[in-house]
């Protein structure tokens, strides 16, 4: 059936089943096999056959960059003759020592919990859509939406470093310089965002359909 605008069913007719291919940029549908959307010029793919490969490729690159991001300093603070270097986790600990627990929690969440959680979640999703049974698709969907929405917030730490470096330039008294980890961390965030975006959410919905049909039998 064609939907009428109320949320009612998990078993709807998809564009693919109707022999059509839908444009994900502008929502127009075209006959199956059309390659470019005539309305918005976006490329059309009913289900991307290479989506999973791209997910994994970006995932691996992201992970590779996340390792040095944690090992090398993010911030190099120079106060009157004394140098101190802060890694990501080190920065969180310093904040907590100053009693700023709320902010420490935000930074910890944005630069440790989110990236690590994202690596695990994307890998889980990519493995789960490959074989079609044994998962609760509803849960996969929520996971996917969370991963896609939350990934960009990891950038907080990079922006904090940028602001600190720009502001704290009191030559002799104190200066703050960025460490190499700021670069690798930013790259890691970008790559995991690309990884999550490469995911074809319609694949998960196809799974939902299969399970809904099986439940009825």
């Amino acid at each position, binding site marked *: 059936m*064609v*939907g*009428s*605008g*109320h*949320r*009612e*069913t*998990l078993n*709807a*007719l*998809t*564009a*693919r089943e*109707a*022999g*059509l291919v*839908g*444009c994900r*940029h*502008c*929502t*127009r*549908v075209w006959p199956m096999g059309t390659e470019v959307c005539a*309305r*918005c*010029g976006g490329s059309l793919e009913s289900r991307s056959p290479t989506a999973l490969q791209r997910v994994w490729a970006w995932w691996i690159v992201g992970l590779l960059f996340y390792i040095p991001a944690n090992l090398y300093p993010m911030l190099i603070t120079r106060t009157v003759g004394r140098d101190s270097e802060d890694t990501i986790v080190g920065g969180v600990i310093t*904040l907590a020592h100053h009693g*700023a627990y709320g*902010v420490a929690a*935000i930074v910890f969440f944005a630069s440790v919990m989110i990236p690590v959680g994202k690596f695990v979640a994307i890998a889980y999703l990519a493995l789960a859509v490959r074989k079609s049974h044994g998962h609760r698709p509803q849960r996969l*969907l929520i996971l996917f939406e969370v991963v896609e929405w939350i990934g*960009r*917030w990891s*950038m*907080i*730490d*990079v*922006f*904090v470093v*940028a*602001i*600190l*470096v*720009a*502001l*704290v330039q*009191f030559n002799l*008294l*104190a200066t703050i310089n*960025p460490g*190499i980890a*700021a*670069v690798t961390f*930013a790259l890691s965030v970008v790559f995991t*965002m690309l990884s999550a*975006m490469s995911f074809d*959410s*319609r694949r998960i*919905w196809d799974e939902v359909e299969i399970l809904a049909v099986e439940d009825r039998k």
Partner: protein
Amino acid sequence: MEPSDTLVCCPICDALHEVDTVEDGTRLRCVRCGTVIAVGRPEAILRIVVLASTALILMSIVVFYPFLELRNGVFTSRASVFETVMSFSEGVMAPLSIAVAFFVIVLPVARLGTLIWALAPLSIGRAPLPGAAFALRWAEIMKPWAMAEIFMVGVAVALVKLADLATLSMGPAFWSFASIVFITALKDTQMSKHSIWSALDTAKR
């Protein structure tokens, strides 16, 4: 099934919908996944253009006026957003400087610009400018990469980190940047793909 103007697919789950006219004040959601497909607000296009223009004007204040000011005894340092972005510009950090510039200034501005280019003629009842479809598609692609609101949270964290080191005060750019974040969020609630694209279709005829 034959493709037509009224057949709409959900961009998230591919479910087909027959959308004819949308009543004022209602939202059509995907039957399967609940994504908003069409918004019944005839004035939505005008609102988007007005909000985007406001944000774009405020952005010019943001870039060059002082953003934060730091005082520690006799020492004072000021930073505009532009300087913040340029803070990595030496040596190996240069690529990061470019990336931050893109996330915080270039992409938000480009997004506002492309939206205005594509939709402003429609809001005053004119035919769309050439390249409107291209501009609109790119406005959507850039969406996840425009990170102005994340930058604001970064500012808050930096303020706390510096609180015991020096006295901080916010410049005019800080407040206009905060309002841009708010206005952009408001503008995004007015946007739904189908409504905008069908408005563009109608204007082309």
